[in-house]
């Protein structure tokens, strides 16, 4: 437990995945849970854990919460709703802050998913923050994407959010105890437990269909590509920022500000600077 935990901390801080670990991944079913704030994602996951544990499956959970762009701090409150599973050795829950990442999952999420996968968890659930860019990001990480809404939000408003419906493999209307809605969806209530077995069944059915149709391989390939691109972009961003710190770069930037130099010409010059700066793995400060 604590070794896995320490590994996750290192990954969170930007350490690369241990070289022998990636080969051990691919077994776990990765489930992404996304949706607007307040729909009850965490409470739903609490119920899913219960159901999976009943089937003797081991569950890992990554719960992401937003870092304040102003203070740099974060209140990680998802765990509270799943805390009753803390002592279960077949469950591992880790809260992550988005840190300087603007999306719904963090830079290190794919690596942490791999860590849980390699550690033998059968299901790895990734709960996103619930903001606009989440949906696309979680689709790049998960095999099955579950979109959670609730009755009174108004289906129309929800559908209007671009990308949401396109990436949903399973649509869930939670808080069904509050009211119903005429939608093709699984109706659940985390409060009463209604619909949970059906949801787990749907997730499993989706997984099976992925496997049978070779769609799983396609998704995994997409996820791998996205992960590599992200790592590259992250590494490059770090390099760029470092390159901008040199005295030469500062001069170039000043010239642009004083309108002595055109931004496009500035980029050509700065690309020279970039070549001089070697990138190191990105660390959280």
């Amino acid at each position: 437990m604590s070794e896995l935990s320490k590994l996750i901390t290192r990954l969170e801080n930007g350490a690369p995945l241990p070289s022998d670990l990636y080969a051990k991944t691919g077994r776990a079913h990765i489930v992404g849970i996304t949706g607007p704030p307040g729909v009850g994602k965490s409470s739903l996951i609490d119920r899913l854990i219960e159901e999976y544990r009943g089937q003797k499956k081991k569950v890992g959970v990554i719960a992401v919460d937003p870092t304040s762009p102003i203070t740099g701090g974060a209140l990680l409150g998802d765990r509270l709703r799943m805390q009753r599973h803390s002592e279960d050795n077949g469950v591992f829950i880790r809260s992550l802050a988005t840190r300087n990442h603007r999306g719904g999952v963090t830079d290190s999420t794919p690596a942490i998913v791999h860590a849980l996968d390699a550690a033998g968890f059968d299901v790895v659930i990734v709960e996103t923050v619930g903001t606009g860019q989440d949906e696309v990001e979680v689709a790049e990480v998960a095999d099955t994407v579950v979109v959670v809404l609730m009755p009174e939000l108004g289906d129309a408003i929800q559908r209007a959010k671009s990308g949401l419906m396109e990436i949903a493999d399973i649509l869930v209307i939670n808080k069904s105890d509050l009211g119903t809605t005429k939608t093709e969806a699984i109706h659940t209530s985390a409060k009463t437990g209604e619909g949970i077995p059906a949801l787990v069944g749907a997730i499993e059915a989706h997984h099976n269909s992925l496997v049978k149709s070779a769609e799983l391989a396609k998704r995994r390939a997409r996820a791998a590509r996205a992960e590599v691109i992200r790592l590259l972009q992250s590494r490059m961003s770090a390099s760029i920022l470092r390159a901008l710190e040199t005295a030469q770069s500062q001069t170039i930037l000043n010239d642009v500000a004083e309108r002595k130099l055109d931004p496009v010409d500035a980029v050509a010059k700065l690309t020279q600077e970039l070549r001089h700066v070697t990138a190191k793995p990105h660390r959280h400060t």
Partner: protein
Amino acid sequence: MKVLIAKAGLDGHERGALVVAMGLRDAGMEVVYTGIRNTPEQIVAAAIQEDVDAIGLSSLSGGHMAQFSRVMELLKKNKFKPLVFAGGIIPDEDVKKLKKLGIREVFGPGSSITSIVEFLKKNV
């Protein structure tokens, strides 16, 4: 810095714990708050999984000796050594005893968030 704020035992008064949690967040820390009615076992399991740098234990109902010493015992057993601090209603005589158990500081009534933040920044 990552901190776990936890309430052990049956006491359900969250104001102090929540105010500290929000204060630490606004000071730039990542704070996991696990609510009320946690057993020492649940607190330590959460702390390990979250790999926190510090644990803040809140107690107002007088059960701190039994509950906090159990937390310290479990941390030792699991060889996990975050910085542990406490707050709430803890008599002076007990503060000494808690410090002997390894709790680094006890923040009684009237303590400021600023002092807790400084303490954590200095000692973690």
